[in-house]
């Protein structure tokens, strides 16, 4: 049986799920980061950034491992190209979280009181989108088990639709937060630009989460 075990290579599905867990764990840190921004505590911001860097680094390591163990000679249940594309979206979740933490830390930004509530709500919903995307990726092994068809496939499609709903909610929350931001832009001055960038990045997390789901939807449709 030695040769059968060699023939049946290690499926990349498990590592893909592991990577998604790491990336989403990173994105979840946005909520405490927002709290640190609200209080304006630079030490708290710095320690949050440290935690985010650590999680991003872990996601990166898993990504490199997957990439280097996905040689062309493997015939995969999920095509190589699709797999790498999903992996890229997953990785963006961690990367963008890191971008947010970097900027907030470098400029030592304290969130204006008017923005506290809208940003909290946006961040919470964005994390909900990421969590939903992780639940979807957790179904990947079940999808392979059932060959991307039947009841399992419709279950996952339902989950992807739910993800899309959450994402469009984050769009609305982003819109509201931006309006609040621009309402006080005279007072904030140049900071407005940076806050706007941070709001967009936070919303981007939900966007990448949705892309993970959408790419998977295409796989099921195949």
């Amino acid at each position, binding site marked *: *049986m*030695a*040769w*059968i*075990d*060699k*023939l*049946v*290579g*290690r*499926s*990349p*599905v498990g*590592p893909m799920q592991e990577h998604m867990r790491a990336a989403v764990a990173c994105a979840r840190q946005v909520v405490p980061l927002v709290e640190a921004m609200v209080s304006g505590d630079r030490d708290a911001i710095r320690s949050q950034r440290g935690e985010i860097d650590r999680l991003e680094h872990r996601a990166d390591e898993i990504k490199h*491992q997957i990439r280097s*163990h996905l040689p062309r*000679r*493997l*015939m*995969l*249940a999920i095509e190589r190209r699709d797999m790498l594309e999903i992996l890229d979206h997953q990785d963006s979740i961690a990367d963008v979280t890191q971008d947010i933490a970097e900027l907030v830390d470098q400029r030592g930004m304290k969130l204006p009181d008017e923005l506290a509530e809208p940003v909290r709500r946006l961040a919470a919903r964005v994390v909900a989108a990421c969590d939903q995307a992780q639940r979807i990726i*957790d179904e990947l*092994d*079940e999808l*392979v*088990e*059932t*060959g*991307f*068809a*039947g*009841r*399992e496939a419709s279950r996952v499609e339902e989950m992807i639709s739910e993800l899309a709903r959450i994402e469009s909610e984050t769009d609305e929350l982003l819109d509201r937060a931006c309006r609040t931001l621009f309402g006080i832009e005279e007072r904030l001055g140049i900071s407005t630009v940076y806050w706007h960038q941070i709001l967009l990045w936070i919303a981007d997390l939900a966007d990448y989460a949705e892309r993970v789901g959408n790419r998977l939807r295409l796989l099921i449709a195949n």
Partner: protein
Amino acid sequence: MGWREARAIARTHSAPNETLVYPPALLCVTGVLQKAGSLGGGRLLGVPIEIWLAGVLALYMAWAIGANDVANAMGTSVGSGALTVRWAIVVAALLEFSGAFLAGGHVTDTVRKGMLDMDRVSADSLLYGMLAALTSAATLLLGATRLGLPVSTTHAIVGAIVGFGAVAIGPDAVAWGKVGQIVASWLTSPLLSGVLAYGIFQFTRRAVLDRESPIEQVRRLGPIFFFYVFFIVGLVTLFKGLANLSLDLDLPQALLGSCLLGLVGAGVGWFFLRRVKEGEPDRDHRFDQVERVFVVLQILTACAVAFAHGSNDVANSIGPLAAIVSVVEGGGEIVGKSPVRPWMLAVGGLGIVFGLATWGYRVMETVGRKITELTPSRGFAAELAAATTIVLASRLGIPVSTTHTLVGAVLGVGIARGIGALDMRVVGSIVVSWVATLPISAGLSIFFYYFFKGLLS
């Protein structure tokens, strides 16, 4: 488990180093036998020395088969915890043996008579040639196992027979049509089992995995699978297969008997499937419970593969032995029919059990401890397809390779997007080893032909 550990485990799978000790040890034994024979006037304990030699070599070949192949079928069942190593060996030995005894006669005939034009083969060259065939096939088998390459026992012996035939008698004595048929089976047997595996897997997916309650479905369908396996095995065994027991049934009788056997099998399946404990449902792995039920079905197909393997591959060691014995007992005449005697089967069976005990045991334990990516539902589809193909081919007298059919079947499941990852480079090296088997084994056999000719004449 990380990638690195997985690879480390795969490495420990290849055969242990002491493999290389066996061929020299064997040559010593043949030397001693020859010496003893020359002292005793060509006889040892009243039995001609050639038969002693043939017996030892057939034992060696059967041992190589047992060490190499037999653990394959049962390994995954051990891995899933469905069978203990001890039970797996008992079951494997039993089924291999009964496969050889009950359904092995047809391939034995092909191996013995089909490859060469027997009218042109002298008794002496047949004797040396068959001894050479056994030795070279077994040597090749061990070498390949050492390299972790799955070569075909069948094709090793066929290559060896063609090898000595072409040299000792002449290329035109070789039945090249038959050889062509075997070369064609490189393509047809994996293709057939691949298509079957694809179909079986798609069926289990539609009928079980995609359903609302897969566990209920697999319990309901399980007995049908049991019926099918018992029916096929029964049909092949009963329809003129029981010549060894001087029991010849015609087709309607065989059909009836197979149906009865199938019904018994369905009952057994129903009983066992009912007893599978489902365990706690796991939210993250909702299909674990279904797979646990599939474990039972996989034991069944593993048994079927063992039976098929016995019917197909064990004949490879017994066939040449029977030919040698008939030459020696015929006093240099090549008798038309060389019957397979019970003691020859015992030699084959003994060799296999011995191989299992010395090597297969460890292979099985290693395979068993490893988390395989081939889940029971996949293993089931692949093994059922392979067993069907082998059993049918062995009934038709076409010597196909157990290995080839299994590879084809695994690929079939993979094409149905049922397996996470298949390493196509491994497929490439396997195919190369298939093609290389015939010439290498032919070359070895030519060498051993002159060796035995020098030793015995």
